């Protein structure tokens, strides 16, 4: 731990030294995101070891690592797999529907007049409010969970895509008219590519909504999944299980978002935009 913070100290001072941007500097720069978690973990370990917080409420990070190791040899992967499959299928359904309806509403004011008020009203309903209804209609098996996730991830994608299409430069749309593109070609060749920056924001928000919904669904009724792990930990009074589940959620959420972010960066290579200052 001490060594990790030592490295972190070097990293924090590196940009101030005004050194030329070597590959080593950029590699260390990529580690900057680890500084805060490392410091927090070290602090927590110390505090628990000193006995300032009782261990049965807050296990030390080293204890957590052991619990995680035990789980990793056992059922942890099955839980992760179950939740990931639910997230992926729900997100795929929700995002595809949003892509379809969002582009239709985006280019047509008439469709917007018909559909958008309904969507806005449905969007105002918290995702969890659907749960009882979904349980009554679809039972407690997979269908209701995937549906909840699809509903949750639909709206961010839909909202951002519509906003993105409405932000497309009118001059580019005119280019489509000049080349006599059909409505479908206009969507495919002009509106969707031009709205891509918004679309990716929507997809990333939609994906984090999907993880939120999967936990909600699994907390209520599931026999496997990360949400089930949370319930299990509470019922057996094992904070380490709960914390392992939380850490797993953080890792999975970050991992899936990073994948999407990388795809975004590759797809949006053409953008000529401000990427944030160095300070």
């Amino acid at each position: 731990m001490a060594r990790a913070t030592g490295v972190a100290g070097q990293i924090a001072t590196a940009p101030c030294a005004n050194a030329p941007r070597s590959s080593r500097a950029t590699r260390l720069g990529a580690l900057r995101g680890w500084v805060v978690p490392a410091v927090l973990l070290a602090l927590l370990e110390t505090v628990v070891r000193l006995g300032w917080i009782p261990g049965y409420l807050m296990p030390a990070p080293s204890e957590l690592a052991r619990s995680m190791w035990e789980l990793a040899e056992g059922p942890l992967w099955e839980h992760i797999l179950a939740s990931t499959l639910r997230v992926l299928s729900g997100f795929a359904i929700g995002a595809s529907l949003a892509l379809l309806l969002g582009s239709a509403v985006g280019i047509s004011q008439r469709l917007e007049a018909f559909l958008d008020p309904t969507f806005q009203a449905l969007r105002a309903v918290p995702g969890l409010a659907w749960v009882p209804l979904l349980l009554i209609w679809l039972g407690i098996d997979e269908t209701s969970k995937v549906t909840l996730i699809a509903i949750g991830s639909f709206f961010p994608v839909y909202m951002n895509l519509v906003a993105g299409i409405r932000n497309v430069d009118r001059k580019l749309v005119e280019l489509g008219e000049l080349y006599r593109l059909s409505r479908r070609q206009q969507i495919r060749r002009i509106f969707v590519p031009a709205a891509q920056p918004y679309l990716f924001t929507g997809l990333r928000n939609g994906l984090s909504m999907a993880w939120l919904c999967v936990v909600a669904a699994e907390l209520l009724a599931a026999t496997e999944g990360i949400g089930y792990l949370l319930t299990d930990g509470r019922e057996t009074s094992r904070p380490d299980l709960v914390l392992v589940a939380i850490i797993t959620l953080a890792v999975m959420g970050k991992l899936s978002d990073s994948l999407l972010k990388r795809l975004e960066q590759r797809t949006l290579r053409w953008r000529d935009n401000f990427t944030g200052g160095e300070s």
Partner: protein
Amino acid sequence: MSGLLELRDIRKSYAGVRVLDDVSLALAPGEIISLLGPSGCGKSTLLRIAAGLDQDFTGGLSHNPLLDFGGGSGIGVVFQEPRLLPWLNVAQNVGFADGRGVDGAWVEQLLTDVGLAGQGEKLPKQLSGGMAQRVAIARGLYQRPQVLLLDEPFSAVDAFTRMKLQDLVVRLADAYGIALLLVTHDLDEAFYLSDRVLILGGSPSRIQRELAVPLAHPRDRRSAELAYLRGEALTELTL
């Protein structure tokens, strides 16, 4: 009809205010016409009508049936700003009309024509203003049009680039047998390039005067005839 493109008695109003009144012109094959006038006189509007981008007018617009041969409308357009699609590279922008079924050899030929050989892989954000406008010109030529409409195409580039692009367009129009209809507020440009200069002015705008430029290309920018004609136009515009 003898012309490639004919506009007859065009009238156009914006919000009840008439901006164009009984404007007529005909573009013959291979001819270069400039529409010259102060900003706001409706010359760009007239070009948009000719391009088919503005349908809300009264009067007649006729295309020669010859124009309908080939892939596109037979009319290419180059706008004031390059209007490249930022997510497509240079070659994809030039061949935009055909999407994936693009004629790569023709794109490369056009890029060579406009002085951008081998730069097809670049993205628009990597281009200077002059280069981007060259790409836009190549795109305008991609569908082998017989008429090229240009809306103040050189107004956003520096003076030297502008002269180069003017020569480029005249040379390509001659090489491919294309008639040009050019909208400009630049007197030098109008007379240097055109066979006929139509001066648009008044409120609502009409064609105030038509000046023929009976000089062969390539022309000398410093020639006395051009200076005389510019003077005539200036008198008309400041009256």
